[in-house]
């Protein structure tokens, strides 16, 4: 009896699935590192849970955060997720750099299989569970405020997307504790990821994590696009939207069209692995080239899903911190739209080396270079925005400047790679690795960090510490150059990517420099956490409750910091591209409205967390072949969706009195705050009220 029941319950779980058992049986450095990582996850989870219990905050977290459908709280949770995952993936990056630096003609301390898991999780996490949550969180928080709306179009769906993403991230974390992760890289190319070559649970972890993430992102894209089309406040015509909203719109459109190819690619791979289909297998007519097309049909637009929101952040930041209108708004909008369209026409450049005709390669190479034009235009638009302005070198502005200069170098090598013959040499080498880090670290991470510093005071009501921000900035920039410029050299010397050992002694000095750079990047992240700690500690001195610490231009600055649950007591009406900037100069933006009204908002819902937990359980069941768990999870998700459609009491109302009380408290604070000139914005004199000039 037990023979039949245990396997049915536990699927293919065995004791050796636990890294601790493996480390016990084979106590080498590599297994110990693995067990250590697993232990960190478990101990970290226990510590967090204990802390919450001790503080008695479970109920608070559940009712105020986890079940919240408020776009602001969902946005913050996305960004918390992004930071957690960034920490893990950055450490993995450092480990890989350390391994290569020590593995010149020596085995190093990480075994090949473990190394392969490291680069697979590093890439998967950075793209799907760091970059995507970060930009989704930022858009979630900022976009509805910028368009003068009280929420996104589908608040509950928004919560579902968040929890699907969190479930997917949890799955990747679970692979540290139970089983192993994929060794097939973030792109999971078959036939290597087929059962014949990767029979273990790793690839399945990858498949279901990415699939859940891609479904979450598709839903997010739909949600944002509908919000921007349908929920702009009166007078906010398309060509009056802040640039960040434009980039959010284009990113959403890309998500709607580009995430399905990923879903299809991973679903077909899953069919191959679970039901013996033959899409990408070597035998019976499978064809892995179709996977490459499907994956990169997603993969290339994905690059712009990641980069466009950062472009939006830079547009806001450069304009605000130059005290100047954005130069070439129309041209920036056109450039963004052109990039959106062109991003679907270049996917073949990810596999120029697959042996297709020269005509095809040349056509896709030219399309790739064409994207350089609108991108270059954007850079110049930001330069002309600073021109004739008054530039303040705050942390977000520093990130923007570093981005502009570093991104150009990435563009430089991007054009090189767009030439198919040059790609034949650089493909699959560290040159390529250096190139895409050179695009994504400035083009995504710097943008997200600029946005984080820029809007943090809006979200939490106090400024982030400037000194630690600058230290972190310095580490991010210096660390980037030290870590990745050597990789260009190594790639040009023919060093393949994803290699656990190195046999060429002349590569060693470059690997050392890259290793130091990686450590600096870890220091940069650590400084960010120190900064957060210091800022929370000193929050009383840095309060900006009045809501406008940077002499802002858009609607998000016209309300208190942090904003009330309903965002706007009265939905705004706008007649220019920078309504708050003009408003401050034309009349008093802090005058109370004629009357307050009751405000109806969506009620919190358990739907999101419930679906997230069930999806994680179902996916875990699929990974481990615990079919009962997969089936129960899937059925329960359907039950939750149906039950939700029967819910009728889905709104709650904030009375006009309460709105009035909240607003009056803010208006009094604004009236009592001293307006400050820009020279003082980094001091505690800044209470969030800007001195208005010209």
């Amino acid at each position: 009896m037990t023979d039949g029941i245990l396997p049915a319950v536990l699927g293919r779980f065995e004791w050796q699935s636990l890294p601790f058992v493996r480390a016990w049986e084979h106590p080498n450095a590599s297994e110990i590192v693995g067990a250590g990582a697993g232990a960190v996850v478990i101990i970290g989870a226990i510590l967090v849970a204990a802390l919450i219990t001790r503080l008695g905050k479970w109920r608070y977290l559940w009712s105020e955060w986890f079940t919240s459908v408020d776009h602001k709280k969902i946005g913050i949770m996305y960004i918390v997720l992004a930071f957690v995952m960034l920490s893990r993936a950055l450490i993995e990056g450092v480990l890989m750099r350390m391994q290569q630096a020590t593995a010149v003609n020596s085995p190093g301390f990480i075994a090949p299989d473990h190394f392969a898991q490291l680069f697979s999780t590093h890439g998967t996490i950075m793209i799907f569970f760091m970059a995507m949550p970060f930009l989704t969180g930022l858009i979630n928080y900022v976009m509805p405020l910028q368009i003068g709306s009280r929420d996104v179009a589908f608040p509950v769906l928004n919560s579902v997307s968040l929890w699907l993403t969190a479930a997917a991230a949890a799955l990747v974390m679970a692979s540290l504790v139970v089983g192993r992760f994929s060794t097939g890289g973030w792109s999971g190319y078959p036939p290597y990821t087929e059962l014949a070559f990767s029979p273990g649970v790793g690839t399945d972890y990858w498949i279901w994590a990415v699939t859940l993430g891609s479904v979450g992102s598709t839903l997010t894209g739909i949600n944002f696009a509908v919000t921007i089309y349908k929920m702009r406040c009166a007078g906010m015509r398309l060509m009056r939207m802040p640039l960040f909203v434009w980039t959010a719109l284009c990113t959403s459109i890309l998500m709607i069209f580009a995430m399905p190819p990923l879903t299809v690619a991973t679903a077909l791979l899953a069919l191959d692995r679970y039901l013996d289909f033959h899409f990408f297998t070597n035998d019976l007519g499978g064809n892995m080239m179709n996977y490459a097309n499907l994956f990169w049909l997603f993969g290339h637009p994905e690059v712009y899903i990641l980069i466009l929101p950062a472009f939006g952040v830079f547009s806001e930041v450069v304009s605000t911190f130059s005290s100047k209108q954005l130069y070439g708004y129309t041209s920036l909008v056109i450039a963004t739209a052109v990039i959106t369209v062109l991003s679907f026409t270049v996917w073949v450049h990810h596999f120029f080396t697959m042996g297709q005709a020269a005509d095809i390669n040349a056509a896709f190479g030219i399309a790739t270079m064409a994207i350089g034009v609108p991108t270059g235009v954007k850079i110049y638009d930001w330069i002309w925005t600073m021109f004739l302005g008054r530039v303040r070198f705050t942390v977000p502005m520093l990130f923007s400047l570093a981005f502009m200069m570093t991104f150009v170098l990435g563009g430089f090598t991007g054009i090189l790679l767009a030439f198919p013959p040059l790609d034949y040499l650089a493909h699959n080498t560290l040159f390529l690795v250096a190139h895409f880090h050179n695009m994504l670290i400035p083009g995504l991470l710097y943008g997200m960090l600029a946005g984080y510093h820029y809007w943090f005071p809006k979200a939490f009501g106090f400024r982030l510490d400037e000194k630690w921000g600058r230290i972190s900035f310095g580490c991010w920039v210096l660390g980037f150059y030290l870590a990745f410029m050597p990789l260009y050299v190594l790639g040009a010397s023919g060093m393949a990517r994803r290699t656990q050992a190195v046999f060429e002694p002349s590569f060693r000095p470059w690997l050392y420099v890259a290793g130091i750079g990686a450590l600096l990047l870890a220091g940069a992240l650590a400084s960010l956490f120190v900064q957060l700690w210091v800022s929370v500690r000193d929050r009383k001195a840095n309060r900006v409750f009045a809501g406008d610490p940077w002499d802002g231009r858009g609607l998000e600055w016209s309300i208190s910091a942090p904003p009330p649950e309903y965002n706007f007591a009265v939905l705004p009406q706008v007649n220019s591209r920078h309504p708050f900037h003009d408003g401050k100069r034309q009349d008093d933006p802090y005058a109370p409205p004629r009357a307050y009204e009751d405000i109806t908002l969506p009620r919190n819902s358990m739907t999101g967390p419930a679906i997230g937990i069930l999806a994680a359980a179902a996916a875990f069941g699929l990974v481990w072949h615990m079919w009962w768990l997969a089936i129960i999870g899937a059925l329960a998700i359907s039950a939750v969706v149906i039950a939700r459609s029967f819910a009728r009491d889905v709104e709650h109302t904030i009375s006009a009195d309460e709105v009035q009380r909240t607003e009056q408290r803010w208006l009094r604070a604004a009236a009592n705050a001293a307006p400050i000139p820009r020279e003082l914005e980094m001091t505690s004199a800044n209470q969030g009220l800007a001195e208005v000039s010209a």
Partner: protein
Amino acid sequence: MMLAPRLLRLLAALPLLALGGCAALEHGVMNHAGPIAASHWHLYVIVGVVLVAVAGPVLLLTPLIAWHYRLSNKRHAFRPKWDFSWTLEGLIWIPPIGIVIGLSVLLWDYTHMLDPYRPIASGQAPLEVQAVGLDWKWLFIYPDEHIATINRLTIPAGRPVHLRLTSGTVMQSLLIPRLAGQIYAMTGMVSQLNLAASHPGVFLGENTQFNGKGFQDQKFNVVALPPADYPKWVGQARASGHPFDADDFAGLFHKSSPSQPVVFSSAPPHLFRQIIVRSQETGS
């Protein structure tokens, strides 16, 4: 662990960088050893020079303008509402479009010229070699010489080489940085690569597409012999007395890297085709 000495060694290595760097680049296309790689390098330089001209202005203007228009510099004009100029707009759209059109012509020509399938123009007929990517080794079959090797590609310098590639396992990618670019080797399919060495020498070849835990070991030497020595080498190979047999065929599919290159004194006539068919039938 011994972190301190390691750190010291790291620091000591820094001044040696310049020297070490040059040494590293000698393994790449910069130190090209054949006509194809030489053209690649030529293209690198042309595009690089154009791009320096493109990126240069941004690298100069960004810090200059940001610094000049800093808040504390009150001597300059401040025009917060200035946000458009047709002249500037023309300047940022039209020249880049022109440059991309110019580069496109270059790209089109070079992509066709350096098409890996394109035979190298030469007075001599190319040497035919069939390359098979395996876990974690390369098999080279010389169909005209009826010999085969594992993890060593011996070629005559000065004569074009025409490689036909397939994979006996997952997808791989063959790169010999000093001789030519890379091309994928895929199961059930045949891709091609033309290359040549212009002088005798030993060049590194490798698989660049990750294919499992022996991936980093999948390297081989390309030995370019003086033209007169090549027939001698073929003769030696044939005399080596190790014909390729059924055990060797089975051995190809063991996941391992041989510690030494292997030479087979004879190879069955349809070995390449046999491997293609086998993978499609067994799926692994």
